[in-house]
């Protein structure tokens, strides 16, 4: 997907046209088309013709921003770094159907939608747009992966797809872990004495070890009793988001085999997602091993 090109020589009076060749490859990989007509008129590919190859679920999975909106300015853009063209349009967001909670609410506001090839943006046209948020500037720049005619039925199907995707993502998280344990932290201790000659770096993890009492196993080998895992107590930018368990904490923990310099392989908890949220932990109970 091309957003712009930068002139190789000298200053330009106009902002550069955005270009994203790799995104074209990504779009090609996941498909630029939407399958089927289960929700009525088939959604339009973003500027390309041909048979649909993506289910609504797959399109929703690939998109981090799905919204119902009305085209207010075809061929325009409301971001400085996006050059207006036939592939861009300013679209008013009327309802957000999928977005990360970290993205501001743009309901009632205008965003720029960018197609991967020239396509039809018609003034006043209301559609559901599927895309990824590539830019955050004066507004959002949405790289369109697909769009569909508006309708309540589509909204319901998007919500259903998101619920399915939540389950899929949770299952994938569990399967990516070496161990997924529902349990309680019994104790924690410093490991500094176990590690000799640690390099002096601001990114020292300051490893500690937690003893996790096993209530249930959701992924990995069947275990009983307790299992140790390492976690970084450092609040350096590199490690601050990692879970910091304390005795008594209960939950589902995703443990990964990790090589610690000077120690060898241990089970470790490294990223915020390695402790499931309450909603995830509840949903994951269906996968408890007998």
């Amino acid at each position, binding site marked *: *997907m*091309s*957003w*712009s*090109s*930068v002139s*190789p020589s*000298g*200053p*330009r009076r106009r*902002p*550069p046209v*955005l*270009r*994203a*060749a*790799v*995104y074209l490859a990504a779009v090609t990989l996941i498909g630029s088309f939407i399958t089927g007509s289960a929700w009525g008129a088939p959604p339009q590919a973003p500027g390309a013709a041909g048979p649909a190859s993506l289910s609504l679920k797959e399109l929703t999975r690939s998109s*981090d921003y799905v919204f119902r909106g009305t085209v207010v300015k075809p061929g325009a853009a409301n*971001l*400085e*770094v996006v050059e207006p063209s036939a592939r861009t349009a300013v679209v008013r967001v009327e309802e957000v159907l999928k977005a*990360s*909670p*970290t*993205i*501001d*609410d*743009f309901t*009632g*506001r205008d965003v720029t939608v960018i197609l991967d090839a020239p396509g039809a943006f018609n003034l006043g046209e209301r559609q559901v747009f599927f895309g*990824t*948020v*590539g*830019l*955050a*500037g*004066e*507004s*959002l*720049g949405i*790289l369109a992966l697909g769009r569909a005619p508006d309708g309540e039925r589509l909204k319901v199907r998007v919500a259903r797809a998101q619920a399915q995707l939540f389950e899929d993502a949770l299952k994938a998280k569990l399967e990516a872990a070496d161990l997924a344990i529902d349990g309680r932290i019994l104790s924690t201790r410093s490991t500094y004495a176990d590690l000799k*000659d640690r*390099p*002096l*770096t*601001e*990114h*020292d*993890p300051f490893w500690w070890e937690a003893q996790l009492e096993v209530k249930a196993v959701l992924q990995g080998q069947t275990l009983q009793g307790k299992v140790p895992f390492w976690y970084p107590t*450092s*609040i*350096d*930018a*590199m490690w*601050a*988001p990692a879970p910091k368990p304390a005795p008594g904490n209960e939950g589902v923990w995703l443990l990964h085999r990790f090589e610690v*310099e000077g120690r060898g392989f241990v089970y470790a908890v*490294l*990223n915020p997602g390695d402790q499931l949220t309450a909603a995830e932990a509840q949903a994951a109970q269906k996968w408890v091993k007998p």
Partner: protein
Amino acid sequence: MNVIRRDRPLLLLALLVAALLAASRAGAQVTVVNMIPNAQSSETRQDSEPNLAVNPANPQQIAGSAFTVNYTGATTTAPIFVTTNGGTTWTANNIVPSGNGSTGDITLRFGGTSNVLYAGTLRGGSGLTLNILRSTNFTAATVMTLLRSRTNVDQPYVQAATVPSLGVDRVYVGNNDFGAASGRTATVDRTLNGTVATPSWVSARIERRTTCGQDGPPIRPAIHLDGTIYAISYRYRPPSGCVTPLASDVVVVRDDAWASSAPRFAALTDPSDGLAGRIVVSNVKVPFINSSQSTFGQERFVSSNLSIAVDPANSSRIYVAWADFPTGVAPYTLHVRRSDDRGVTWSGSDLLTIVNATNPALAVNSAGKVAFVYQINTGFGQPLANQRWQTHVRRSTDLGVTWNDLTLSDTPANTPTATFIPYLGDYVHVMAVGQDFYGIFSAANTPNLANFPQGVSYQRNANFTTQQLFNVAGTVVIAPSIDPFFFKITGP
């Protein structure tokens, strides 16, 4: 009437002072911009440790970085900030490869005339994994291309330039390589052509002396277009153990042929031992206290504070800055010195000494004017609530004999509360393009004009009357946090 007559001398004095101040600043145009885009008005991330790259071929194009997280929640890429209008407005663009939506350390630099942006990062989610990256279109959605990946490496610091006669980019990335033999970890990775499909790299070890087990984290290269490459580092002196405060030498190395000499970086030796690497100062005490210090505005000491700048019109003239505990204990003190003979001899005493400060950064413009940026903690010895962080730019036109002083920010040191360290960063950045200085620093973002003596503009929703931040819709108050700020100084 009586009041006016009594106050007239004071009024005249005030007017005179104001006129003198205006005259001293006349011609110096200072721009300060909060880089958080309007679309991210709700963000409350601690965006510390900033870096900046200005495209010398088109200074309207600038890229900035900080400890910023992908705002979409995606984990495969992290953002940089980009502008195509010289820094007036900024956009976050998620193009840095990542494993967790952010990066560890990150620095950026454009080639000289190639329009190519290079980055050195510690890949997010991968610990001490160095990534050297390239983008041929930094505003596009294309994820940056991975040029080199190595593990067990700290603090990548990138510099780049286009060789005038050849039109190729040469790229240098200072780093602390814990995989280097014998504890001689100070390293510069370099390629002689950064724009080919698969650049070839060498890791040049620049430490020639024994250490306590390693060198300090910061290794900073500097490039002159005649092929002179300098680098500065902290040698942590033996004996082994590396205990804070670390007895350190500030060492400058030099290569006269784009770091392709044999051996590399051996052009400058020290008379004390004949080994490569001129010892600028010896046995200074450099603290390594890797925790948030309430006595130092919530910041930490991780001996990351070195800077070096070469005069673009004279490769023999270089300025260096370092930080230490002069007496072995606080206050943390910055020092600036100069060499006019390619690092052989140095100013016998400091050109500037700044007490209780951190994050020194140097640059020299095409007219030989030197800029020195730093962040000073006021209220030494006082409770955190009484401390403030100020960001200063000092400039000199007489080789560092006299300096003027601009305060870019003056913010409380206790608000916001640190959520991780570093609080403001282990570095800031300043660079020159032509006669203009461009830079970046991080500071608390409460929209209070009194906190920004040179003025400031915000893109994120901010009410300077109520001194509050708001979400995009302007309906929800947003808590203060640390933001990156761009600055530009033009004129005398």
